């Protein structure tokens, strides 16, 4: 073999290896781009609550009528400046619906009268496998380490893929400027949203960071439990161990984090 040819093949194969193995991209540029700008440090608050997987257990046996849920919905919507828009373009964070709409997998045509008349509270299920996160083209919605499916409204482009992806109807689109339906923000320490973004329940991540339980849990006087699903001694795990519970549309495999005691 010609030495020149041999040399050429050596260099060619080495460069092919370098390019394909990513050695060539180990420049400083990528690291510099991720460097922190602030000279200080970031951390958690002293009182903030942490969990491996936040979950909610709603004891529906303790609620008799739709009016029993009213204070919870009010507390949630007041805390997050959620407007009430008449018609089918309303914003829903916490809302009510009938048994057959909440649990359509239960095909039993002869429900007990009690169940036929009952209403159930609905909210974002904060799924373990959230379809909304998979379809979001801008990563405006994402799953955090503690299981909360959160949203960054700054990044939302309003494509509404997440609304099509969510099997629970837990996401609402701002067809109008929400401030028109909210003349005065009910909570000046929380932002509103703007026209053209999708919004949903946040499991009160901003309250957990301050050591407070979610607004609906606080307003329920112990009828809704909130805790760490991975901790066998948590209130939610104890309630699930002691009672029969169901989740919405379990056959979809999304693994909701909201459990209903029936």
């Amino acid at each position, binding site marked *: 073999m010609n030495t020149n040819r041999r040399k050429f093949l050596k260099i060619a194969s080495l460069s092919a290896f370098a390019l394909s193995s990513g050695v060539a991209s180990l420049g400083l540029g990528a690291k510099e781009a991720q460097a922190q700008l602030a000279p*200080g440090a970031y951390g958690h608050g002293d009182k903030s609550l942490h969990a491996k997987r936040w979950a909610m257990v709603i004891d529906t046996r303790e609620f008799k009528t739709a009016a029993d849920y009213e204070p919870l919905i009010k507390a949630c919507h007041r805390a997050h400046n959620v407007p009430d828009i008449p018609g089918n373009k309303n914003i829903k964070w916490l809302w009510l619906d009938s048994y057959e709409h909440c649990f359509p997998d239960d095909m039993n045509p002869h429900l007990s009268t009690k169940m036929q008349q009952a209403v159930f509270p609905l909210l974002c299920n904060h799924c373990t496998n959230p379809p909304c996160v998979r379809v979001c083209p801008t990563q405006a919605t*994402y799953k955090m380490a503690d299981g909360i499916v959160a949203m960054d409204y700054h990044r939302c482009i309003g494509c509404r893929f997440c609304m099509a992806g969510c099997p629970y109807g837990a996401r609402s689109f701002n067809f109008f400027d929400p401030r028109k339906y909210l003349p005065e923000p009910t909570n000046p320490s929380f932002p509103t949203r703007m026209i053209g973004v999708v919004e949903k329940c946040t499991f009160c991540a901003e309250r957990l960071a301050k050591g407070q339980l979610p607004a609906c849990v606080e307003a329920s006087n112990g009828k809704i439990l909130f805790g760490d699903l991975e901790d066998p001694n948590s209130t939610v795990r104890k309630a699930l161990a002691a009672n029969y519970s169901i989740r919405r549309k379990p056959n979809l495999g999304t693994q909701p984090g909201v459990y209903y005691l029936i």
Partner: protein
Amino acid sequence: MLYNKSAVYIGIVILVILLTSPFWVGLFGHNYTSTGITTPKDQATCIENADFMRAQHMRLLNEWRDKALRDETRTYVATDGKKWEISLQNTCMRCHTNYKSFCEKCHLSNSVSPYCWTCHIIPTEGK
């Protein structure tokens, strides 16, 4: 041959003055020195020094947003060791209560129009 001599010369003079007008305004006009913003009276410093905040506050706010919303690290420990809650409305606007004479004044003089306030709520006293 040049017709309407005087009109043409006057026109040329007017044209030259117009074209060079930015220089005249710069030479004899009011000099730009400051945006005229008023900083909060009851605070000696912002979370970091003023130079850093002036140059980087928009990037810092972006970083705060990502740290708070995505990493759930909602506390910022400044270089002087002071702890701050990461929140535009609950931390920044608690001191910078006057939107008109702080945010807006500087943004207008620098002709930038950030859309923070379509969602974040401006304190009522500074609207």
